[in-house]
């Protein structure tokens, strides 16, 4: 444009046909050009001025000087209006809205502290708290519709579930996205906050509750990662709260319709939900939301009013109410309500956004109002007060008066932030001087704004009563929210089982044990069993007993958790029975192995496998279902001991041979030192031999053997024998050491990891109940037949044991000489073992146990493989 003007201005100069008219035109053009330039500079100046103002206001916001910041923003808006500049966007108020909310919302640390205090008040106050016991969906807080129990044990309506954040994309492609659990996330957050005592400034907050439309929910994605509907919970909910469940269904259907954009149909579903559950704030709020979308804000407001009467401390209700008020252009009220919503829900994103939008609206409206008022006043002044002392209207005087309360600092909003003030002022001074530098040399028509701090004060405070209105609104907001913060939180619906609701009908019985469920666990396929019952089933098969779905993945990937809903239901419906059941279960665990093993005639569980020796390691591989159960019981009861005895014969294929004892009369107690649980449920046990026992009577329990036993130990060495036994011990020990030294290195390195080093002789070996431990260590690695092993175990004479060792070593030293004459010729088993020993001894060393049999399996390998 300038170029064109220049051309017009200069070309005619060389033109011979120039005339007065063209000269006039030129002059006009030049003037116009100058005006434009000036306008541009002015525009730029105004913009820069505004930017500076905003910067100052933002800093004031951040420092918590909210009233001053508010005044500044107000001034900016007005200035824009005066100068005909586009008013600032809502985005401009971000800092201010943020600071305002931060002042209102209790910090996370405070919240955590409050929660902590509540917990500390009683040992577990939640137990008696109806809120805690409520069996509603933790997400929507109404009756569960299509309940799904997550792996953590919490149950939600299926439509309420959202998938967990995808996180690392690469990693995620392999892993299925699972639904995330709101309760678990919250409890994690609370513990983290209280542990570190920090304010989670930049924390990302969940916003699910405010989503009617969300792409990330479970139903919209292929729900592979999601568990099936919990059949038991569904049955109970439909039985106990039929109307509420129906309402919940209608509401969830409404949500789905809304998501597809069918607002009218969604409204009809919500309407039905309200009719079914007229006292459900959630349903009312959903209907309000649909009404708002249908452009019926007054009806929406009525619904939210009802909802909030039922549940005053409900953030989402406040949010919907704020939207309705805002749609009705009642911005002042909307502002307070939205602020409350943000406070109650610990500042969800959506409420924040809406809050700053409305705040912006309020400030704009206020500015317009003020301008109108000013115009009216001006008119009035011109009309009637013309000629009076104009100093009365001197803005300086009034502003300086008004400024006092803010500066002195009785402001409730920023009293705790005084510390910051000096810094901020300092930095502001710096900034101001910078700005002045930039502006120096400017043209005179902007002179009045140049030192803008003074004019600012005059202008912003020109009409204090208007500003008072905004400030008082902010104060009111803080008062209202303070009040709300003190409210006891109440859930939307407290759903409890009806009195005498469940146990009579057997609703809460486990299908497997036919007893009241105990520590109920729900599988991914939605079936609920007692924890222990499910464990036992999984010993036998990885399929769910009811639907035969494979639970292999579930077992491999997750820890079982008690299903919260069912446990609460049990505690409500049948507290006494449940307590009795827990007691019975503990008894179950302890019964096979009472803590005092010293008495004669104690019951012990027997692992029928091989002979183990006292003081000696005995690694075991446990794969048979019944022994998995036995080992689990040992560990869970804390006893960690069971008996082991050699297997005498295979259990014949037929059944009903209840009387045949299949294991040796003598055995050893084993103590579990370590257990490695394999993925398929098998486990490897590291055990060590303890006391020896003799079986008095055999028994059976849930498929594994038990025995009534008496413990045995060596007969004390008499004074007369002491000398000879000591001599014998010395000789056999020397012989054994010599022999051990001849064992090839490779074999020794196989034995050592399992059985350890050749033990030293104990100082008090003569008085030990099982004699010196080295004898047992040696017996464990010597190639002895099973009958001989049992015989040696049974003997209570150290002398006999030493002689047996001596004899064996003598035989071994004459290579290839089988120790068969040592065998008590007692039937087939012995012969069979002899063959085995021969195989084992093929390397000619005489050490029978190669790597492959270091870990002993129970004898029923065939059963397992079949």
């Amino acid at each position, binding site marked *: 444009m300038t170029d064109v003007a220049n051309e017009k201005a200069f070309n005619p100069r060389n033109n011979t046909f120039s005339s007065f008219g063209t000269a006039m035109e030129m002059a006009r053009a030049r003037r116009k050009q100058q005006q434009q330039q000036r306008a541009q500079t002015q525009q730029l100046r105004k913009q820069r001025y505004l930017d500076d103002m905003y910067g100052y206001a933002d800093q004031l916001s951040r420092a918590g000087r909210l009233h001053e910041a508010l005044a500044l923003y107000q001034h900016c808006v007005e200035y824009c209006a005066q100068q005909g500049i586009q008013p600032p966007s809502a985005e401009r108020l971000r800092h201010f809205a943020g600071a305002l909310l931060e002042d209102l919302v209790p910090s996370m640390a405070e919240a955590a502290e409050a929660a902590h205090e509540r917990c500390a008040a009683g040992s577990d106050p939640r137990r008696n708290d109806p809120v805690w016991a409520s069996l509603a969906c933790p997400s929507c807080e109404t009756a569960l519709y299509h309940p799904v129990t997550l792996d953590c044990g919490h149950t939600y309506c299926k439509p309420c579930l959202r998938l967990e954040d995808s996180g690392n994309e690469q990693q995620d492609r392999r892993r299925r996205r699972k639904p995330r659990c709101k309760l678990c996330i919250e409890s994690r957050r609370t513990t983290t906050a209280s542990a570190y005592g920090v304010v989670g400034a930049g924390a990302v907050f969940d916003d699910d509750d405010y989503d009617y439309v969300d792409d990330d929910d479970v139903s919209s994605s292929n729900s592979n990662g999601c568990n099936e509907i919990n059949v038991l919970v569904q049955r109970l909910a439909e039985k106990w709260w039929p109307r509420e469940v129906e309402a919940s269904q209608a509401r969830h259907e409404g949500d789905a319709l809304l998501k597809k954009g069918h607002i009218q149909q969604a409204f009809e579903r919500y309407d039905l939900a309200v009719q079914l559950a007229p006292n459900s704030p959630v349903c009312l709020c959903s209907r309000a939301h649909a009404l708002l979308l249908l452009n019926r804000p007054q009806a929406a407001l009525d619904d939210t009013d009802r909802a909030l009467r039922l549940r005053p401390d409900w953030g989402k209700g406040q949010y919907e109410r704020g939207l309705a008020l805002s749609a009705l252009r009642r911005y002042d009220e909307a502002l307070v309500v939205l602020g409350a919503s943000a406070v109650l829900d610990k500042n969800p994103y959506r409420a924040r956004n809406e809050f700053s939008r409305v705040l912006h609206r309020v400030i704009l409206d206020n500015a317009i109002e003020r301008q109108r008022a000013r115009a009216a006043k001006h008119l009035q002044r011109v009309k009637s007060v013309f000629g009076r002392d104009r100093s009365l209207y001197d803005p300086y005087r009034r502003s300086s008066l008004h400024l006092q309360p803010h500066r002195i600092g009785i402001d409730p909003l920023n009293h705790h932030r005084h510390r910051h003030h000096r810094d901020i002022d300092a930095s502001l001074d710096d900034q101001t001087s910078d700005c002045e530098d930039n502006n120096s040399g400017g043209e005179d028509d902007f002179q009045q704004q140049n030192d803008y701090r003074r004019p600012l004060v005059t202008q912003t405070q020109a009409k204090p009563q208007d500003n008072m209105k905004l400030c008082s609104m902010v104060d009111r907001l803080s008062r209202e929210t303070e009040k709300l913060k003190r409210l006891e939180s109440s859930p939307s619906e407290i759903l409890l089982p009806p009195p005498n609701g469940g146990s009579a009908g057997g609703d809460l019985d486990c*299908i*497997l*044990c*036919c*007893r009241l469920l105990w520590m109920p666990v729900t599988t991914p396929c939605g079936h609920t069993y007692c924890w222990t*019952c499910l464990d*036992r*089933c999984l*010993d*036998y*098969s990885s*399929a769910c*007993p*009811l639907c*035969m779905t494979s639970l292999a993945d579930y077992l491999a990937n997750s820890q079982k958790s008690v299903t919260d809903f069912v446990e609460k239901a049990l505690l409500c419906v049948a507290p006494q029975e449940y307590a009795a059941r827990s007691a019975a279960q503990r008894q179950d665990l302890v019964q096979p192995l009472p803590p005092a093993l010293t008495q004669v005639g104690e019951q012990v569980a027997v692992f029928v496998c091989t002979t183990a020796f006292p003081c000696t390691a005995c690694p075991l591989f446990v794969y048979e*279902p*019944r022994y998995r159960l036995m080992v689990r019981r040992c560990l869970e009861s804390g006893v960690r001991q069971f008996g082991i005895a050699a297997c005498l014969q295979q259990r014949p294929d037929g*059944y*009903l041979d209840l009387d045949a004892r299949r294991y040796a009369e003598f055995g050893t107690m084993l103590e579990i030192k370590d257990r490695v649980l394999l993925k398929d449920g098998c486990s490897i046990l590291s055990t060590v031999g303890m006391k020896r026992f003799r079986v008095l009577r055999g*028994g*059976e*329990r*849930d*498929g594994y053997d038990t025995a009534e036993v008496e413990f045995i130990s060596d007969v004390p060495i008499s004074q007369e024998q002491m000398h000879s036994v000591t001599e014998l011990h010395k000789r056999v020990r020397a012989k054994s050491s010599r022999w051990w030294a001849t064992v090839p290195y490779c074999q020794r390195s196989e034995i050592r990891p399992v059985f350890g080093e050749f033990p030293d002789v104990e100082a008090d070996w003569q008085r030990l109940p099982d004699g010196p431990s080295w004898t047992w260590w040696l017996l464990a690695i010597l190639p002895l037949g099973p009958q001989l092993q049992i015989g040696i175990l049974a003997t209570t004479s150290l002398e006999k044991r030493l002689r047996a060792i001596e004899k064996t070593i003598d035989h071994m030293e004459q290579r290839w000489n089988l120790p068969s004459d040592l065998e008590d010729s007692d039937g087939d088993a012995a012969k069979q073992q002899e063959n085995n020993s021969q195989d084992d001894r093929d390397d000619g060393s005489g050490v029978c146990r190669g790597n492959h049999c270091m870990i002993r399996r129970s004898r029923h390998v065939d059963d397992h493989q079949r």
Partner: protein
Amino acid sequence: MAALPRRIIKETQRLMQEPVPGISAVPDETNARYFHVIVTGPEDSPFEGGLFKLELFLPEDYPMSAPKVRFITKIYHPNIDRLGRICLDILKDKWSPALQIRTVLLSIQALLSAPNPDDPLANDVAELWKINESEAIRNAKEWTRRYAMDN
């Protein structure tokens, strides 16, 4: 012997209170895990009119393991052998702890109604059943008359 699990007590109670039509199962007086079972031959089957005795035993790890069931009365059936052993998947690999005595007995009754010669236990019987069904059925009727009706 440990106390009888509640599961067995409940199942027994229910078997007594609401018996399965055509089946009676009574626990032994001395052993509550041992049941005397009588199954009546289903209508429209070669076993019609017969009363078949069976024994049923609940092993110590029932319901984790299937009950052991055996025909005592001789029966001409492709899935039941000379010793009375029954070829029925739910008694073997298809067993689930959610199944009950009742379901097992119902399955056995159904097996009498619908013999399955393609999954035989008694090979010669199955063979004949496949080659000459009418003769096999005649045999079955004959056996039923001879062994399951004289009482």
